[in-house]
């Protein structure tokens, strides 16, 4: 009994030494090791061989590790080897959609370093993902929004949105988003916009989709008509010294053959303050 107690006491003492030393070791400041172990990362070819037919598993392990590892960095720091790591993960499993999405997201968290280079790195990762996942519209949409929101790069955002819209499974809202962005960016002519929105109204999938397309069509037609009618109003003002109160004044003056209708066939108004075209948007078709 005594010997057992003595043994247990020794074990308890040794265990407390273990715990104590571990606590003390944890408190000793060490040089920041971030990034150093990454110098020894093997190539994707080597990892594929070592994984013995489980490259997907190797990609998962690296992916899980990267999420934990990069959470130690602060946004103003340079995230070491981030693009290399995500290239490695996506070389191991090229169909790993989350890796492209989250890799790009982690890249965007960085506020330090060369932001232009960072934007290029995000673009390279998304481009790689879209090459490897030719049916994935969600990744393309995510890329579009990332460039729109994070980098305010509307041209690249539109480029990715157009890729998303072309993917076979893309829902109608993605196609509408592209139309709206093109309108906002003046990335096409008003005639092309009108043609696009007329077709979209015909192909609308539900009442909300149709209302949204109708709204865009209405604005596009108004913009085109404004380009034609407002110079006529200004010419009238120059000639007669006052703004016409109705379109009939322009017809009588020989500047117009008939009252111009809007998309719904209703006449536009004339704003006498600035002598400009006034559109009365309302949705009769709902």
């Amino acid at each position, binding site marked *: 009994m005594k010997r057992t107690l003595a043994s247990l006491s020794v074990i308890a003492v040794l265990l407390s030494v273990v715990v104590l030393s571990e606590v003390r070791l944890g408190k000793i400041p060490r040089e920041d090791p971030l990034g150093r172990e990454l110098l020894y990362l093997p190539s994707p070819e080597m990892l594929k*061989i070592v994984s*013995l*037919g*489980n*490259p*997907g*598993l190797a*990609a*998962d392990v690296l*992916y*899980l590790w990267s*999420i*934990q590892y990069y959470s130690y960095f602060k946004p103003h720091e340079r995230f070491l080897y981030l693009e290399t790591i995500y290239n490695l993960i996506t070389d191991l*499993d090229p*169909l*790993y*959609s*989350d890796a492209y*999405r*989250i890799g790009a997201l982690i890249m965007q968290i960085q506020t330090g370093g060369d932001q232009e280079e960072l934007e290029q790195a995000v673009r390279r990762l998304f481009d790689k993902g879209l090459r490897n996942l030719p049916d994935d519209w969600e990744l393309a949409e995510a890329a579009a929004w990332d460039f729109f929101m994070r980098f305010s790069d509307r041209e690249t955002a539109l480029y990715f949105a157009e890729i998303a819209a072309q993917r076979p499974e893309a829902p109608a809202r993605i196609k509408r988003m592209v139309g709206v962005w093109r309108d906002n960016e003046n990335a096409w002519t008003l005639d092309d916009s009108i043609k696009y929105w007329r077709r979209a109204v015909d192909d609308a999938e539900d009442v909300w989709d149709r209302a949204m397309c109708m709204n865009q069509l209405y604005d596009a037609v108004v913009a085109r008509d404004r380009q034609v009618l407002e110079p006529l109003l200004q010419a009238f003002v120059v000639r007669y010294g006052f703004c016409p109160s109705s379109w009939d004044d322009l017809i009588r003056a020989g500047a117009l053959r008939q009252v111009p209708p809007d998309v719904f066939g209703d006449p536009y108004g004339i704003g006498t303050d600035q002598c400009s075209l006034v559109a009365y948007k309302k949705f009769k078709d709902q």
Partner: protein
Amino acid sequence: MRAVWAITANTFREAIRDRILYLFVSFAVVMVVGTKFFGMLTVGDEAKIVKDIGLASMQFFSMLIAVMMSMILISREVDNRTVFNILAKPVRRWHFILGKYLGLVAIVAANLLLITVVLMLMVLIVAGELDLMLLFAGAMTVLEMAVLAAFATLFAVLTRPILGSLMTLAVFLVGHMSADLWLLTHQLPGVLTRAVIAVVYYLLPNLERFNFRTEVVHDLPIPAAAVGWAVIYAFAFVGVVLFLANIRFRGKDLK
């Protein structure tokens, strides 16, 4: 053939009584159930992680079972001299080899089925989908293990258990790297060198031919021809290796 089936059934019964088998199966089941916790660490598709880790565990533990059990089952019969009792009956030596081999494949298949069902349940819990393709991945792993078990049987009659286990393990490793050996033939100078490597490549099993895990995880189409030829490849390889094992066992002095 009755003798073969009797040995097969006996091998199966003997194997399921072995504690080492339960140890491996328990590890595999714990690993598959543990995938849920790995999945929780991820951002995004948890089911992919569960399937990847589950399928890899399935392959790894089946390999361990095949290697260990084949060594134990044959060497035990020889060391305990019970092989004489069997061969004294109207049982030929090739009956013994084939029966042992089939019993081993049956035990590996039964374990794989159990692990696959656990994995399917995990995927059902995590993703809410019953992925029947996991059964297909499991079946292809059985084929891979059938080839490996044939080599294990050959090494069991050729050499001592520990060395045999190491050699089977080497076949498993090389079997997953032999595709790279084939790629090497395109890069090396000299027709003779390329020819030698090509011969080595064809003599070694290419276990990657049974690997459809990526297709199963990513829901990709699987060409029927690839599956069909993989089955033929496995049967042919097993036939060749078991013939060699039989030749060696026929001439072996068991005293």
